[in-house]
């Protein structure tokens, strides 16, 4: 077994016992990237020199009190890191080198983390397949003809292919959970405001969250311990205390009340997914949890609500890429013409569509009918979750209605692509936390390779602890997380 196949926990234990060094870990990951990334295409930038330097420094310091010290990781390329090209997956920032770092990146650096590089994503995190990257698509390590999911597709593929120990991604409507599900990794979407967004390129500011993609549930808790908390640079991070997320992880789940929302089992979903999730629910019962059927009737309006609000916020956020202060600029003579040409040349199709959609929903005469209406329905969706959580501890549901699809299969039909997010967008609309973890494998109808299936566990605001505990108990009672793709 190579060192890069270890989990964070195992690598940390080895570092403490001096069985190997941080440089050994970094070299193993870099070797794996060299060996496999031509096929997978997870990395936009590999920071080999920086990784080796940081690993050497971690070995020299030899302070492994934080379990992330000396552990190599990758960042989604929408995280700004000082002095390192950070593109957001967009041609408009193809050569952008930020003069500052994201708070989360800074925290990992401070704890002697080892940055292997920046990984691929859908342009400015808009997409569910990684095909909207301005540079190249990433492939699913379980089947190279299929998408890894998105938008954190590079993060999920890199973790699944053991190119890194963990990766940070972002989740606005499923962008951590869907790729985690498609690639068979763990992905944690935190409560809105739990992790600072400072220095991470914005998609929709009232939905965006930052979280880890890892090989195990325990690793996700370990990463969250370091990145969570209030940040004076992000005013949407409430001063809620950060518990030790690993503390109660191993406590059993006897008596835990788990809700199963009936609206998350819809006609048209892949029967293999429904079967795996039902089996997982049975497993929770075996572990002593109490299963209750619940109803979230507004679920069917979540996609419409989500897309109006998110595209509206996106159209405002994207106005900053105007070719004046940073990034790509066209060469027109007048300022107004240069705006038009910079955006026309710099943005890809989904980003342009988002700007158009959002601008329309916010424009005079349509604001009340679209934006305001959706913001009101959002209130009702959030209330519905609050109501359900009065009687239960967490919810379980599928992550996606479909198995990983083939590259090119849905790229020309935006509405079909949006429907891949049907079980993940309601969670961001309500702002609650959710985790995705492997709960089975199945062959798709149009393929012969087994593909991972994800289980989603959804919790109350700022109650990441309970969903991590439920996920840990399930994971330890099953073997799914031990499977590796054949590369």
């Amino acid at each position, binding site marked *: 077994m190579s060192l890069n196949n270890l989990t964070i926990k195992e690598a940390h234990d080895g570092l403490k016992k001096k069985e190997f060094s941080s440089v050994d870990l970094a070299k193993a990951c870099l070797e794996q990237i060299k060996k496999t990334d031509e096929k997978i295409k997870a990395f936009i930038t590999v920071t080999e020199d920086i990784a080796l330097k940081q690993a050497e420094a971690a070995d020299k310091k030899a302070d492994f009190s934080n379990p992330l010290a000396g552990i190599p990781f990758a960042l989604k390329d929408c995280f700004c890191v000082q002095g390192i090209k950070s593109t957001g997956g967009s041609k408009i920032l193809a050569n952008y080198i930020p003069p500052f770092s994201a708070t989360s990146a800074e925290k990992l650096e401070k704890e002697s983390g080892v940055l292997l590089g920046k990984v691929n994503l859908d342009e400015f995190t808009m997409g569910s397949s990684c095909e909207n990257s301005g540079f190249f698509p990433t492939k699913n390590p379980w089947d190279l003809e299929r998408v890894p999911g998105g938008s954190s597709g590079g993060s999920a593929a890199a973790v699944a292919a053991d190119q890194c120990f963990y990766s940070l991604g972002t989740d606005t409507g499923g962008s951590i959970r869907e790729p985690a599900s498609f690639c068979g990794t763990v992905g944690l979407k935190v409560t809105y405001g739990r992790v600072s967004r400072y220095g991470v390129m914005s998609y929709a500011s009232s939905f965006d969250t930052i979280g880890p993609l890892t090989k195990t549930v325990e690793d996700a808790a370990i990463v969250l311990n370091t990145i969570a908390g209030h940040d004076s640079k992000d005013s*949407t991070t409430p001063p809620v205390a950060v518990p030790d997320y690993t503390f109660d992880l191993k406590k059993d789940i006897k008596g835990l009340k788990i809700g199963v929302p009936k609206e998350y089992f819809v006609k048209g979903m892949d029967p293999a997914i429904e079967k795996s999730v039902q089996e997982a629910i049975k497993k929770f019962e075996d572990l002593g949890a109490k299963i209750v059927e619940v109803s979230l009737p507004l679920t069917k*309006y979540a996609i*419409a609500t989500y897309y109006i609000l998110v595209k509206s916020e996106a159209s405002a956020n994207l106005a900053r890429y105007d070719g004046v202060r940073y990034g790509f*600029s066209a060469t027109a003579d007048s*300022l107004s013409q240069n705006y038009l040409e910079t*955006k*026309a040349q710099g943005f890809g199709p989904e980003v342009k569509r988002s700007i158009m959609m959002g601008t329309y929903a916010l424009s005079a005469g349509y604001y009340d009918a679209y934006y305001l209406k959706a913001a009101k329905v959002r209130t009702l969706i959030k209330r519905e979750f609050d109501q359900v959580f009065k009687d239960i501890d967490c919810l379980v549901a599928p992550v996606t209605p479909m198995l990983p699809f083939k590259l090119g299969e849905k790229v020309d039909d935006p509405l079909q692509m949006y429907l891949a997010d049907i079980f993940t967008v309601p969670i961001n609309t309500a*702002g609650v936390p959710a985790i995705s973890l492997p709960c089975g494998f199945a062959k798709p109808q149009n393929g012969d390779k087994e593909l991972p299936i994800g289980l989603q566990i959804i919790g109350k605001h700022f109650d990441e602890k309970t969903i991590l505990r439920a996920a840990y108990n399930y994971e330890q009672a099953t073997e799914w997380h031990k499977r590796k793709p054949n590369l």
Partner: protein
Amino acid sequence: MKLTKEEVEHIAKLARLGISEEEKEKFRDQLSSILEYVEQLKEVDTDEISPTAQVTGLENVMAADVISDCDEETMKKLVASAPMHDDNYIKVRGVFE
């Protein structure tokens, strides 16, 4: 109802987004089908419901109105990030024809 070409052009102008003739046609179709899909929200009764933009209950988070220092090096890098710059200034194209 399908958006007209003029409507698409108007939205693109509001967003200062240059789009080609081909894109105008494509957006007419795609935006129309998305708008048709979101029409379903009309079914939800939202009378007397306030809109939500903040899900964790925070409001009006204030910060002291003080300028925080920026070191010389960072300042230089910030200005150097601009496509056109001169000394310590960011250059902008002419506004008047």
